[in-house]
């Protein structure tokens, strides 16, 4: 140990050093803690208030959902899949319609909130539920009916953003749905199979006749309605010949 270190230690510690100052602090805190009792809450009966932005399990507004599958594709752990279930609304004396709705495996859910963030119709919401313990792994898989949750304002996630070409200029941030990516068709590859029109969740694809082939049969090509489209990528995924690509708004 050098001389410099010894002198520094003596200067800083002084006579009251050693253990008295730490004991003084501890005593002060002890008295504060005793006076301001209680420091804890009775957890199962009392709960902490969660802030507005708190992210718990994902919830579903059943009637708003259109079964587009964006949540399924964006989920980082792939804990969401689409299942066919009976619709809640049904006409008198009729069988309920079959609809596609998300099913979430909460045992794998990260609570990242991407499903609610990317949902085009605000059907997926972020709920403040955090008590999700179950007795078995099967119980942690929430089907679309169990996934429903009461809606309150603020549960849905609205992200406002600008395009990369508009940064640092005067532009008002807009919702994601207002600048969407539109699928474009490669005419060479299309075989007129109509799968994009059948699978589109919002019926934004219509098949239009553009002429006849050499055998006299009509050739039909898909036309996309930019107003209805929600850029969900379903048509791009189902296309058997990879004729569709997304044209991005940048």
């Amino acid at each position, binding site marked *: 140990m050098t001389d410099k270190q010894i002198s520094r230690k003596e200067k800083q510690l002084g006579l009251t050093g050693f253990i008295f100052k730490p004991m003084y602090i501890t005593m002060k805190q002890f008295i504060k803690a005793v006076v301001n009792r209680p420091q804890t809450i009775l957890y199962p009966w009392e709960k902490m208030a969660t802030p507005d932005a708190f992210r718990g399990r994902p919830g579903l507004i059943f009637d708003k959902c259109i079964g587009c599958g964006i949540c399924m594709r964006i989920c980082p752990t792939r804990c969401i899949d689409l299942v066919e279930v009976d619709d809640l609304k049904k006409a008198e004396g009729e069988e309920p319609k079959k609809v596609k709705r998300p099913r979430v495996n909460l045992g794998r859910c990260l609570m990242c909130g991407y499903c609610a963030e990317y949902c085009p119709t605000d059907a997926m919401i972020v709920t403040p539920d955090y008590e999700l313990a179950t007795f078995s792994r099967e119980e942690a898989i929430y089907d679309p009916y169990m996934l429903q949750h009461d809606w309150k304002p603020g549960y849905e996630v609205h*992200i406002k953003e600008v*395009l990369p070409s508009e940064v640092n200029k005067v532009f008002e941030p807009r919702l994601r749905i207002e600048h969407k990516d539109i699928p474009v068709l490669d005419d060479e590859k299309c075989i007129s199979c109509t799968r994009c029109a059948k699978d589109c969740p919002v019926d934004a694809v219509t098949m239009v006749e553009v002429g006849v082939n050499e055998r006299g049969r009509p050739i039909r090509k898909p036309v996309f309605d930019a107003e209805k489209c929600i850029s969900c990528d379903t048509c791009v995924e189902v296309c058997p010949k990879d004729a569709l690509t997304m044209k991005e708004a940048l």
Partner: protein
Amino acid sequence: MAEMWINMGPQHPMTHGLWNMRIKVDGETITDAEPVIGYLHRGWEKMVENRLYPQIIPMADRLCYGSAFTWSHVYCMAVEKLMDIEVPERAQYIRAMSDELQRIGNHLMWLAAIGTDLGNLTMFLYATRDREMFLDLFTSLTGARMTYNYCRVGGVRNDSPPNWTRDLVRTLDYFEKRLKEYDMLVDQSKLFRMRMEGLGYMSAKDCINAGITGPVLRASGVKQDLRHNDPYEIYEELDWNICTHDDCDTWARYRVRMMEMQESVNIVRDILKKMPESGPIRVKPPRAAPVGTAMARMEDPRGESLMYLVGDGTDKPYRLSVRSPLYVIISASPQLLKGYRIADVPSILGMLDVCVGEMDR
């Protein structure tokens, strides 16, 4: 007396996680040491190769439980460089502010751990209590306590909630008083200083040769801080000082981290003054990245973290390589330990702020 190997870990209170420190002792003196990691290897770098670009952000959060935001931040910076996106000014300020709050939270976690390492349970309780205030701030800002998923490619997720600035200023005022209490509790306690002074000596030359960065390097008197030397986001515009110490031992490392907490408080106050009131905070990123490579680095609470990204024109990265600061520091731990007693191991290694999540990946 014959020399023998001692396994400290993988289940040992000193290790703060799953890794193994093998130590060769001659009596009480350490003659050789060998860190063994791999118990927490999750294959992170391979795992992210089949994720979309936005899906990797929550994965990057889970690299380190102590400083989740900085890891998603460095990932987002790498992707922004690859995609050539500009970030709005307000988003840059929010990111820098979250970085500094994360630095305080992480250093408090380290302070709690070093308290229990050295047998000071009071330190642990006080530090975790104060860290809770910063976790509450993060909960109301981002929506989660530890894995925030807040940074986005081209900005941040959401704007700060109403009254958040008021809460932040109150917390910082309270925390500055606490820092003075820590000074009295630890710095002026002879017992604590006896276990820290003159241990784990590493000169500036050795530190630079071993590739050590962060508070450990600054404790050896080297003025190296990426916020100053390679400024990212808006750090050029802020007034602050690099915290250094000349003693090169564990006591210096302790002091540098305590000074950094004070400096982070000053930086956050400066940011609150200079932050624009409103404006866009988020840019819509393209789906696919172009063919090419990008590199981003930043000052993590533990040192220099770096991500190297190779894009192949699709919406998934071809390769994402991570440089963890602690992986390098732990590799140099035999140099730090050699010649000291076996009872000094917790104080020397605890001062490095070990986090196995980022080390093993």
